[in-house]
């Protein structure tokens, strides 16, 4: 298991900076929005938490299609499936490495990008907290989507289509925490829900992912 994790991280670093790229995409989405909606600071600061969450989500999403596809194309996935390693464990490790490569940098960078969108003062803490709690769920759900669509040509867009509705609850609670945080309101309820979703998803979804992957490999 650690071997797999280390390999995936090594691959991400070798491949011209897996770390940097997810981040860069997040940055660019946040930068594009002011170009799109215009530079009014009051407006930007109102939409900042939401846009940052949507940006983080899209950054996660974009990197999903390579989560299993590369291993599938070069045959590693077949070989891993015959290895003495439960598929559930393997997929959890995959999700973890996806999170380390994509989610974690997003969590760390979000406050910095908040500045670009004029995020109000108290928002920074809660934005970070909500992303830290929510992005693991995004990675795990994404792994499920990737397992569903592995091996389909042009699976990329189908993957987005399947995964996005699954992302909605996480997004709503995550953005709600960030928004309430930014406005100085109470965040306890959405925070609990967010944590609940993450915990549930991390505990249960890998089983579904493994079942689906097994079907896809045969």
């Amino acid at each position, binding site marked *: 298991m650690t071997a797999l994790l280390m390999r995936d991280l090594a691959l991400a670093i070798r491949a011209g900076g897996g770390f940097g790229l997810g981040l860069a995409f997040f940055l660019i989405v946040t930068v594009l929005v002011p170009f799109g909606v215009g530079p009014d600071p009051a407006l930007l600061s109102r939409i900042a938490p939401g846009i940052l969450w949507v940006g983080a989500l899209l950054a996660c999403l974009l990197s999903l299609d390579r989560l299993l596809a590369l291993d599938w194309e070069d045959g590693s996935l077949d070989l891993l499936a015959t290895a003495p390693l439960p598929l559930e464990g393997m997929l959890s490790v995959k999700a973890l490495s996806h999170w380390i490569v994509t989610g974690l940098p997003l969590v760390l960078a979000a406050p910095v990008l908040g500045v670009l969108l004029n995020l109000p003062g108290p928002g920074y803490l809660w934005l970070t907290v909500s992303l830290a709690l929510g992005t693991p769920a995004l990675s795990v759900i994404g792994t499920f989507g990737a397992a569903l669509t592995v091996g389909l040509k042009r699976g990329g867009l*189908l993957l987005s*289509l*399947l995964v996005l*509705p699954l992302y909605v609850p996480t997004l709503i*609670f995550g953005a709600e925490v960030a928004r309430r945080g930014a406005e100085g309101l109470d965040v306890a309820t*959405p925070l609990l829900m967010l944590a609940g979703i993450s915990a549930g998803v991390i505990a249960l979804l890998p089983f*579904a992912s493994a079942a689906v992957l097994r*079907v*896809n490999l045969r």
Partner: protein
Amino acid sequence: MSLWEYANPKKFLATSERVLPFFWVSAGLCLVVGLVWGFFFTPDDFRQGSTVKIIYLHVPSAMMAINAWVMMLLASLIWLIRRHHVSALAARAAAPVGVVMTLIALVTGAIWGQPMWGTWWAWDPRLTSFLILFLFYLGYVALWEAIENPDTAADLTSVLCLVGSVFAVLSRYAVNFWNQGLHQGATLSLDKEENISDVFYFPLLVCIAGFVLLFIALVLYRTGTEIRARRIKALRLRERAAA
């Protein structure tokens, strides 16, 4: 004789062929009667004016959109547990019908919203969760279409349906929490005082029956088509093997 016998494709085809005419005719009858009654022979509401007439389309289609998903969920479970092909194919057959039902509910709702709420669309919990349901439907249909091997497709879509259902419920709750809505509460609960008056109620019931029957007819017929399409696929493969 057990119910599972209908899981045999041939048997299913024979039986559905026998009962289908009944469903087509009664669905058509109910729909025509209900809609004509509703459209021509009900009064306007004192607040909503003539727009109440939309209820005869909106409510039944919204109900069927949800029911279709529930039916797909059951069919998926049956496939996963007992591996009856007909069950998986029935789920596949129901999905596009569900899509259309959802679309009708969305479209009529949007059209109704314009005069009532002054907007086509609002991010009300009920509407929003319906939109999410629509997305689930699209994803489900797209996944069926994308996979070559029928058994693989059946397995994958079944799991998607299951996981999707859980998330649909979660979304519903999340959206509720996120926003308190504009949309009507339950008006159809049978025992409540605030029930809509009988003038609207009876034609509505007929329409609902019509939509239910139409749904059944469509799903039975389409399941038959899917069975035949599956058979064609198998025969083609056989032909190929012979070649």
